[in-house]
């Protein structure tokens, strides 16, 4: 079920092409928009939020109720959409509660008090809501911005680099919050260039490189799609050398290395390796202690995408 549809969208500023022919569909749950600095993530987010018009292509929002609408010049989308921008866009002289309330009033909510309390409770800002924002730490400011973006109970939440500068505890809180919101069926789209944040949080990722969409989907599935690169596994067993000899004998093994930490095996056929490894060790009475796909981390996948531009 697509909630945000982006079709052949490009955006340029003179000669600079910030976003180059991007097509993606974003559904409910948490999606991470990933890419190095300058890849165009902020631009895409701002276009989805209706702040920027695409130079070409269309961005439409498909709300649960109602017709699909393009995002540009359509204030109605804000009923269903909340944006948490990267910049520090809060009025420091207001208290947290006042800030969220002012946003509630801008949305012309029927019962602003209840909505404000709910949003503040959701972001765990109850204790600090009566203090002026100027006294907040960076993480607290982020959270109050999220509260303001949630006050009208939107279906879609867009966050631009939400974890910037947060310390681990704040980050965990924010991740838990976003995961919860995603599990409720909302559509959460957040951008980041810190992979370990994205890896923990989102199932689906969209990777942007230099304005183009390099890959979409689950990052492990993406890795499996990179068939030209051998997969790398770390294996520890009770008899590494024998296992190494056995593995070398198999056609799907391209390289085996004996290291202090065990075997490092490169295989050209992920499926074949997985299917055979348990059988192989059992039949030769080798105890298997550890089997780890080492380059399935988001970092490796990302590195491959960047360097090879998608192989």
């Amino acid at each position: 079920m697509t909630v945000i549809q982006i079709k052949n969208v490009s955006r340029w500023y003179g000669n600079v092409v910030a976003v180059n022919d991007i097509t993606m569909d974003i559904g409910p749950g948490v999606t991470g928009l990933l890419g190095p600095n300058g890849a165009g993530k902020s631009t895409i987010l701002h276009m989805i939020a209706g702040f920027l018009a695409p130079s070409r292509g269309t961005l439409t929002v498909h709300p649960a109720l109602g017709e699909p609408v393009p995002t540009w010049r359509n204030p109605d989308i804000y009923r269903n959409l909340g944006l948490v921008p990267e910049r520090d866009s809060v009025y420091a002289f207001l208290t947290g509660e006042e800030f969220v309330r002012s946003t509630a009033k801008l949305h012309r909510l029927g019962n602003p008090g209840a909505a404000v309390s709910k949003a503040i409770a959701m972001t765990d800002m109850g204790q600090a809501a009566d203090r002026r924002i100027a006294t907040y730490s960076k993480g607290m400011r982020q959270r109050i911005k999220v509260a303001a973006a949630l006050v009208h109970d939107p279906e879609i939440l867009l966050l631009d680099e939400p974890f910037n500068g947060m310390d681990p505890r704040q980050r965990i809180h924010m991740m838990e919050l976003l995961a919860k919101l995603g599990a409720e069926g909302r559509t959460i789209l957040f951008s980041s260039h810190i992979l370990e944040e994205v890896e923990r949080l989102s199932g689906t990722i969209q990777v942007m490189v230099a304005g183009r969409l390099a890959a979409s989907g689950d990052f492990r599935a993406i890795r499996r799609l990179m068939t030209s690169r051998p997969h790398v596994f770390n294996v520890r067993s009770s008899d590494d050398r024998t296992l190494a000899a056995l593995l070398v004998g198999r056609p799907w093994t391209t390289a085996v290395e004996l290291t202090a930490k065990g075997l490092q095996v490169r295989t050209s056929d992920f499926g074949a390796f997985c299917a055979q490894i348990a059988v192989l060790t059992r039949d030769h009475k080798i105890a298997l202690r550890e089997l780890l796909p080492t380059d399935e981390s988001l970092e490796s996948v990302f590195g491959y995408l960047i360097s090879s531009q998608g192989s």
Partner: protein
Amino acid sequence: MTPSTGSGVTPIADAAPGAPAPAVIEATALTKVYPGGVTALGGLTVTFAPGVTGLIGANGAGKSTLIKILLGLVEPSAGTASVLGHDSVAGGGRIRQVVGYMPEHDCLPPDVSATEFVTHMGRMSGLPATAARERAAEALRHVGLHEERYRQIGTYSTGMKQRVKLAQALAGDPRLLLLDEPTNGLDPAGRNAMLELIERIGVEFGISIVVASHLLGEIERICDRLVAIEGGRLLRADTIDSFTRASQTLLIEVEEGLAALADELVRRGLRPAAYQRSLLVPIGGDATYDTVRDAVADLGLPLSRMEQRRHQVEELFRDSGPAGPDAARLGAPGAAANPEAADAR
């Protein structure tokens, strides 16, 4: 170049065997209250051992106050701190002679070359002119800047600029490096390169390092120890190994047939629990591994992961303890405590 016998410098912790290694930084009840009532540090007591130590959690006021105190630039309101044996108040100048500092933010002039700049900074550290030139050249080589060093810094990428910052900290031959978010602004490849460099410095050059970062993955990767600060106080200080000790749970992933595997394991007497797209099995000895292996082989399932779960540094920052079978899982209920009440400013 004259040949030498060893591979460089002996690490600092080479005291008599059995003797505890001398602390690199010691803070005792360190407190700093700014006019206006903001408490940046509220009674911090901690010891940093030699090696590579990660510093987490002190964000904003706490971290920069701590660094300023350690460099002898600010006096604490109460308590004491000493760096490499020198008191921070009485021996500030001496501390700054043996400590190299790499700030978090941009701090490089754009219109000089790296060579000129690092040489100048070497002279500012008290090196005579020739020594400054030589050590600058060496420092730039060690951080991996080659012909680029003769170009103006304004033309450098973020990664190269971070390396220049590191080089100027190295030029004065420090015994301790304070690195503040050294991978800030770097893309994954650059981050990787910087982390490898820091690791190399810590291991091969024999220089103790304190890395302030909020990326736990990085810290787990290159640090031996960790100091976690929260609300101006010590949360925990320990070795990384103690944080990431193995738990008694085995995680198993198969590409298909997870349910069938779960049933088979139950049949063989194990107690698997579902966890995202894998199974968690309590380890009851070496036999557990073999049972799992045999079950997978008999069913002909493709095994893609089998590992003993380790704890993560991140668990330190979760409000509640681990929920369920020894696993840190997203969505675990958080406690109501809000330690950020003290985290103002």
